[in-house]
């Protein structure tokens, strides 16, 4: 595990994420349908961006991971945001008594991690490690993007404001 390699891959992951994110936002924007109310509009837009963020994260990781696969499948099936989506019935693992607490916690971990419903505990933890890493990377990227874009728009709006004046 070379630190150089790690940093390099991390950087490229970030760049890939940003690129895919913006790309997916742009593609979703092309299929943009205006709704009437502004609140609805902004809500829908935020959902679109949310989906785009998750999709880009999953696409950066690729098909190697279960969670990314499940995210991509969910988005393809348009079921990521619907509450009444089909839920798989999963078999509950019945543990011994002294392990019950921990196993219960692990069962709770299945929900936030995508694709975690049908995994064993070890794989679930593995996925959680990877998912947490990429999620934190994603959050950082999105924060930077948001900051930069807001400033950039400040720049342009300032310019336009000045031009109006």
């Amino acid at each position, binding site marked *: 595990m070379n630190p150089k390699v790690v940093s390099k891959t991390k950087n490229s992951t970030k760049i890939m994420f*940003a690129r895919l994110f913006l790309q997916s936002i742009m593609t979703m924007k092309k299929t943009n349908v205006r709704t009437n109310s502004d609140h609805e509009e902004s809500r829908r837009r*935020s959902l679109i961006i949310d989906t785009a963020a998750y999709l880009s994260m999953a696409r950066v990781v690729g098909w190697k991971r279960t969670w990314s696969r499940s995210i991509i499948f969910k988005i393809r099936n348009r079921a990521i945001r619907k509450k009444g989506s089909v839920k798989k019935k999963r078999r509950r693992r019945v543990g011994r008594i002294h392990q019950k607490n921990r196993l219960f916690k692990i069962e709770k971990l299945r929900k936030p991690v995508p694709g975690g419903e049908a995994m064993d505990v070890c794989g679930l933890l593995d996925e959680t490690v990877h998912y947490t890493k990429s999620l934190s990377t994603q959050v950082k990227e999105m924060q930077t993007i948001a900051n930069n874009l807001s400033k950039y728009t400040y720049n342009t*709006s300032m310019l336009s404001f000045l031009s109006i004046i």
Partner: protein
Amino acid sequence: MLPVEKSGARSSPERPEPDYTALDSLQFREEIQQLMSVPPENASSFTALLELPPTQAMALLHSPGTGESSAVPASSKKPVIEDGIKPYPHGNLTLPTTTTLIEGAARFSVFARENHTPELSCVPSNSSANLEKAVKNEPADTESYPNLSQPLVSEPTVGNKSQKQSPNQTQRSVKRKEREKKGKGCAKKSKSAANEGSDDAEKLPYVHVRARRGQATDSHSLAERARREKINARMKLLQELVPGCNKISGTALVLDEIINHVQSLQHQVEFLSMKLAAVNPRIDFNLDSILTAESGSVMDNNFPNMVMPLMWPEVQVNENGLQSQPQWHFDAIHPPVWGREEDSHNFINSENSLLTYDSSANSASLHSNHLKMEL
């Protein structure tokens, strides 16, 4: 198990220096005495190593069938160690010949029949662990046999798992880890192994223990042990990953913290998407202008395989000289040219809601970002 260990320690207080070139049965006796002379604090670590309740361990010890059956693999270990002294420094795995195995087995069985009840019950059960301990303790004590712990790890009689074992450096890292473990005095492995190779190699001593135990519990307990080992390693990794999780002890609490962390990250993504949606109608314009402006240069320089141009560094370049602070007031007071008051309101609202639902980490990072940008 404990009283047996202590009596063995009393019977031979000082450890004899074993002659590894001689292959007589006296040496086996010495080694067994050496096994007995493992200090009693290791005895508790054996139970931890076996990860069984002591009563169950005792039951396994005193059952006659397991004693006899596991005596043979334990004895077959010794020729491996003695043969392995010369080749192992070069990292070569030499399988012992079957004749030596049979000899060792015969001698050991004779030896095991000579001395009876408690020692007999002790030897097969702890044989693997004791052997490991004894041979591992030697390099630390005398520093004259530094390579003795290597044959144990890469010992070929274990079965299928030892085929993963190969290079010398893996063995060395394993040896180092085992020394650390020994220094700690507990049988728990250091599970923060980053690469897979050492991780696999690290599991091997456990596998030895399981394989020696008895054939009835062989495959299931082996698999269970490997699984537990894996889970613990992942938990360690997660604990390192989630901030503020190092100090918490207890698996349930750590899992709680991990769940909270993942959910807060997801909330953060949600919030950021709201934020971006608020900025979004302006992104349209900006993205288009940026994309048309610099499709060529960035793509050619940095990312030859890139289909879309990367607007990312350019934006960073663009607003180095800007402050972030006055923007909020400006947006709130003067609506932007394309008339989206709701967006700016949304933006502010969502920022307020961030403080409610999210931890201090988020806001702290946001503030740090602001600070960075202002600098």
